[in-house]
């Protein structure tokens, strides 16, 4: 193996497929044979291993670091501390507020303090334990609800407020005849991607470094690395290695600067790969949330007003907290028409683990509160959960709570009707032990099993919001190779498992009429592809690939028009040939191209978004909205508090399914992650310490936990988006969990105002 294997070119075109088909993923064969090179699989001649020494304290002053003993360990090649950071000792996704290596303070348990390179990973780990760090332990802020108190210790100067979003619309003091309210709490969820943070940094002869790494956005990594390494971007080259899932957890840097520092210092290729425990400390998590919500409604259930106060624990560094607050505020009341609104959303610093991006991004937390409250309102006015949502659900042309007009499909009522009308699962079958709540734990014979049904609906922004310049770059080349027309598509947009490379091929085939499409390895040799997050890549990078193809096609058809003596607008590309308006073959592509390659590079931008008003929160903050609804059916053993999800059915509008099979895969996987937060997933943090950094103690759904899912995909094209697409990845993670929670509430007959719901919450013991 070599480093090149990590970004191996994918050329498979069997079977072919265009937009709307479901061709197989081009990396699939390598993935089922074990040959696909993930970041943790990389290997290089003369390679050494890097490890990170991390803080054991949530908050402490560093009095001194003594590396002398570690350096004496046989096999150790380098030990580095903050003093060795070549450039600015500060990185961060939105604000450069986090040291590459802590110098004066550590602000969370697990903060990187020192690095070791050695010839064996175990040698490096043992040497790291011989680095002597003298800490002066400081008081820690660990309750985010107290972080804004005047007497709270400041995690950063000038204080612990990251962002306060204020949103006011209509009459914020409106009154109504029916009032319901609740407090809701959401625990800290982990992305729990299976491929650990890994990378291989290779020092180059020009003094630069080539980093092969698993990430979600090569160019935002590069920008931070250049500052930290004190090097121009020409010398900091990133290459996407195989990515084993992401879900937001790879938006912030992990091994990037550390491995590069060790490589540049030692002159040797350096591999870093976290174990699972370190991974829990090595990336941000989903913000835990504390929410107080109130709805006022007419007696028929029509919403009159909503008020919400949300506190999100951002942990020790800013990461993307400000943007998560943006979503929790602007989208925090769900897909409903509400004329009078007062929302205050806060993101705060604490000495807890840093929190940032995870699939659903601020909408997941809010949905638990607004959906639980919607069920309360339904009961208060005597409607069922579907009817109350259909009554208040957004429709196309409505205005949302920031004053933005929903200018394409908003099928809230239809999505709910679809999931309501789906066939129900058969009654509880407890004859086979494996089908009971508690499954093979053999804890019950089903005497206390009660069935419950719950509904939830959501909408989520697609792409980056609030005025961010959100673009993608694509380079497409068309040429003859071995007598066959071949398109090559080069973007830096990260494939993390979702299937973007398949979509890139499909778009090229559709636009250029060729069968064979090579996906160039993803790297920083082409312009930014933007982030693989916010459900945006099929839309934005897909849009860039489409636009680059159109530019290539225009050049080719213009040439053909000249030689054929016919206007270019009467010509098309199909099957590697130039064809006329009625499909007649006029000339082969080879005769038009000859030895030439036609290559075009295009930046694509979606419609601009705008900052919201700082006092009222009003503005066209988002470019697109994606809607989904779930119905969950659960069997709950109310005596033991055990839950079995029997069905988790969903309907979602995807605008246009570029690859229908992959769309369903996203919806199923996203639903599973949402269910996980409802029932089992929580990083337990006590006094700033993570108590369960392992898959033994942090539980994610297994195949025994997941029910069959009925999935209905709607395709109401967004006229502003390429092919009419709507982002797919996140909505299922948002509406699934609240539906499960509602179903458990219905079965257990308890309010259950916290997720994940634990057995003791159900039994009240």
């Amino acid at each position, binding site marked *: *193996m070599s480093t090149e294997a990590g970004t191996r070119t994918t050329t498979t075109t069997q079977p072919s497929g265009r937009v709307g088909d479901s061709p*197989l993923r081009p990396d699939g064969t390598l*993935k089922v*044979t074990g040959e696909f090179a993930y970041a*943790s699989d990389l290997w290089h001649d003369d390679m050494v291993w890097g490890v990170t020494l991390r803080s054991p304290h949530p908050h402490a002053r560093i009095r001194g670091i003594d590396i002398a003993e570690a350096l004496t360990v046989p096999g150790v090649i380098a030990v580095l501390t903050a003093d060795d950071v070549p450039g600015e000792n500060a990185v961060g996704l939105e604000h450069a507020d986090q040291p590459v290596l802590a110098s004066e303070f550590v602000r969370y348990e697990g903060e990187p303090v020192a690095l070791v390179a050695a010839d064996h990973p175990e040698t490096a780990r043992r040497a790291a334990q011989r680095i002597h760090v003298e800490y002066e332990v400081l008081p820690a802020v660990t309750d985010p609800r107290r972080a804004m108190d005047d007497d709270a210790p400041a995690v950063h100067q000038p204080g612990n407020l990251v962002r306060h979003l204020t949103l006011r619309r209509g009459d914020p003091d409106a009154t109504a005849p029916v009032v319901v309210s609740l407090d809701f709490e959401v625990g800290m969820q982990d992305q729990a991607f299976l491929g650990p943070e890994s990378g291989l940094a290779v020092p180059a002869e020009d003094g630069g470094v080539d980093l092969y790494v698993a990430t979600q956005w090569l160019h935002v990594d590069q920008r931070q690395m250049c500052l930290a390494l004190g090097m121009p971007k020409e010398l900091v080259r990133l290459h996407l290695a195989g990515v084993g899932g992401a879900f937001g957890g790879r938006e912030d840097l992990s091994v990037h600067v550390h491995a590069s520092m060790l490589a540049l210092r030692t002159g040797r290729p350096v591999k870093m790969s976290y174990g699972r425990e370190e991974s829990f400390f090595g990336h941000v998590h989903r913000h835990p949330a504390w929410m107080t919500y109130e709805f006022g409604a007419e007696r028929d259930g029509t919403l009159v007003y909503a008020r919400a106060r949300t506190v999100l624990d951002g942990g020790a560094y800013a990461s993307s907290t400000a943007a998560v607050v943006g979503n929790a505020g602007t989208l925090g009341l769900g897909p409903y028409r509400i004329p009078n609104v007062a929302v205050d959303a806060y993101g705060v610093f604490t000495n807890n683990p840093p929190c940032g991006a995870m699939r659903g991004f601020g909408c997941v937390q809010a949905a638990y509160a607004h959906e639980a409250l919607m069920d309360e309102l339904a009961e208060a006015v005597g409607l069922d959960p579907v009817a109350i949502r259909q009554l208040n659900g957004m429709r196309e042309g409505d205005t949302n709570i920031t004053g933005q007009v929903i200018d394409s499909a908003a099928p809230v009522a239809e999505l709910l009707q679809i999931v309501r009308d789906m066939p129900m699962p058969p009654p509880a079958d407890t004859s086979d032990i494996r089908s009971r709540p508690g499954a093979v734990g053999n804890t019950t014979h089903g005497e206390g099993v009660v069935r419950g049904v719950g509904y939830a609906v959501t909408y989520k922004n697609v792409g980056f919001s609030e005025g961010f310049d959100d673009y993608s770059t694509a380079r497409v080349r068309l040429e003859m190779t071995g007598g066959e027309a071949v398109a090559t598509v080069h973007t830096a947009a990260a494939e993390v498992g979702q299937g973007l490379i398949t979509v890139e091929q499909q778009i090229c085939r559709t636009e250029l009429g060729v069968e064979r499409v090579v996906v160039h390895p993803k790297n920083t040799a082409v312009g930014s592809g933007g982030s693989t997050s916010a459900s945006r890549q099929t839309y934005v990078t897909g849009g860039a690939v489409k636009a680059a193809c159109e530019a290539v096609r225009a050049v080719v058809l213009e040439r053909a028009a000249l030689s054929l003596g016919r206007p270019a607008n009467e010509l098309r590309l199909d099957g590697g040939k130039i064809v006329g308006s009625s499909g007649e073959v006029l000339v082969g592509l080879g005769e038009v191209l000859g030895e030439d390659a036609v290559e075009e590079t295009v930046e694509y931008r979606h419609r601009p978004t705008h900052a919201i008003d700082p006092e009222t929160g009003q503005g066209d903050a988002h470019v697109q909205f994606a809607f989904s609804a779930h119905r969950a059916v659960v069997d709950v053993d109310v005596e033991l508090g055990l839950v079995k999800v029997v069905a988790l059915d969903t309907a979602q509008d995807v605008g246009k399914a570029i690859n229908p099979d992959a769309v*369903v895969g996203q919806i*199923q996987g996203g639903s599973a992650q949402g269910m996980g937060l409802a029932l089992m997933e929580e990083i337990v943090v006590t006094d700033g310490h993570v108590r369960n950094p392992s898959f033994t103690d942090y539980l994610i759904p297994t*195949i025994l936990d997941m029910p069959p899912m009925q999935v209905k995909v709607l395709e109401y094209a967004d006229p502003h988006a390429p092919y009419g697409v709507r982002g797919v990845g996140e909505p299922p993670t948002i509406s699934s969990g609240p539906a499960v929670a509602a179903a458990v509430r219905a079965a257990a007959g308890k309010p259950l105002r916290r997720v994940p719901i634990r057995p003791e919450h159900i039994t009240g013991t």
Partner: protein
Amino acid sequence: MRITTTVNGAVHEVDDVWPGESLLYMLRERMGLPGSKNACEQGECGSCTVYLDGEPVCSCLVAAGQAIGREVTTVEGLATEGQLHPVQEAFLECGAVQCGFCTPGLLVAAHDLLARVPDPSDLEIREALAGNLCRCTGYEKILDAVRSAARRQAEA
């Protein structure tokens, strides 16, 4: 230490193995077989599942030295003469692979299930694969793949 073991049908001698190394580490870092994956390295996720003398094991929990004189089969050994095994074909064609990090372990576990139970019920599939975590798919297409692989094997 030197370890002599049979991997995917071929006898290998591996030198300089540190006694604390797992079978997984030896396969991945010393034998050029990184197909078995390192997702948790404590026996919870199943990504490192290999056959050891025909029994599926988490190779992260097996010391490299335990493989001395025994037969190991990894995901790299499932295909024969360049032909994918029906389980591999089914995972590929049913969309059971997204990021694919869990796939090698799931393939070995599913391969083992179908060798024991040619026509498993859904409950049998779920029980057999309960030790393999997948974070991308929600498992539906994995179930599809195992059902499809059973049909393919029956028809073969």
